[in-house]
């Protein structure tokens, strides 16, 4: 069904949803921040 194929094609064109260096930087920063908080929490636990 052409209509469905067009919609699938449009959806796939949107992937990847976000792909920029800035996003990766922010993402990794967030990741590391949370890992640090987890580390501190384990310290507090100890």
């Amino acid at each position: 069904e052409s209509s469905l194929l067009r919609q699938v094609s449009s959806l796939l064109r949107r992937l990847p949803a976000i792909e920029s260096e800035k996003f990766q930087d922010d993402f990794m920063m967030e990741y590391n921040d949370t890992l640090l908080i987890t580390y501190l929490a384990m310290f507090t636990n100890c």
Partner: protein
Amino acid sequence: ASDAIFYYDEAAQSKFQKEKPWANDPHYFKRVKISALALLKMVVHARSGGTIEVMGLMQGKTDGDAIIVMDAFALPVEGTETRVNAQADAYEYMVDYSQTNKQAGRLENVVGWYHSHPGYGCWLSGIDVSTQMLNQQFQEPFLAVVIDPTRTVSAGKVEIGAFRTYPEGYKPPDDPVSEYQTIPLNKIEDFGVHCKQYYALDITYFKSSLDCHLLDLLWNKYWVNTLSSSPLLGNGDYVAGQISDLAEKLEQAENHLAHTRYGPSLMPSHQRKKEEESQLAKITRDSAKITVEQVHGLMSQVIKDILFNSVRQ
């Protein structure tokens, strides 16, 4: 049948008002039922206040030992620390609103007030307690609800508490068992001094059939919004505040330990042991809670990244 709760039986309400069963039992009201409409209005209003406290009134009725909140409306005031101002500013508005409601066929009376504690938990401060005691003297039945919009976002569930104060000088028979919550250091004193002057009620929610229908229609939109938002981004300040608060508490605990080390003879060992544990145990629990919320936020980010960013054409 689910809509029966919305029926307002004026005769029954005025009979109940006359009997005043709460007069000889300070613990009479035990439950609160909040409608979806009232809950949404209160949480959105609390959220709109940002870091400022906002307040409003709740309308509803009673049903045995339950107070039923049907609706709520915001008051044009900010900050509840100045209790007197809040009343003076908003009084006219309150009266107008209630009277207009009656003319529009909404018979419910005001059954309580709500206000927000952005970021520092759901409990009653000293001034809140005196405000509520005053309300319970003159406007019974009256309920106090506190909503924490910041923690609502961070925890992903509505942080809300409903309370009623005891009469002056009344000693509750036992310690109030309430759900543990983190109290910031600069509020601990205000919390601790008054926490025995009120008790928490059990909160449940209800929806009308129309609510169900509308919420169904909105479900997709809600879900997409949830999916495309991240508590990590929205609550950075709150988390930073929590961590600095933790640091202060740790500092305090360390000082406290130093004192007890020099004066062990002052306190019997088992009480000192209990004291230490509770302080440190609380700090550990606080830090674990913050961490869990952060890790939840990160997990959702990681899952979204894998699902939507790792696929290549």
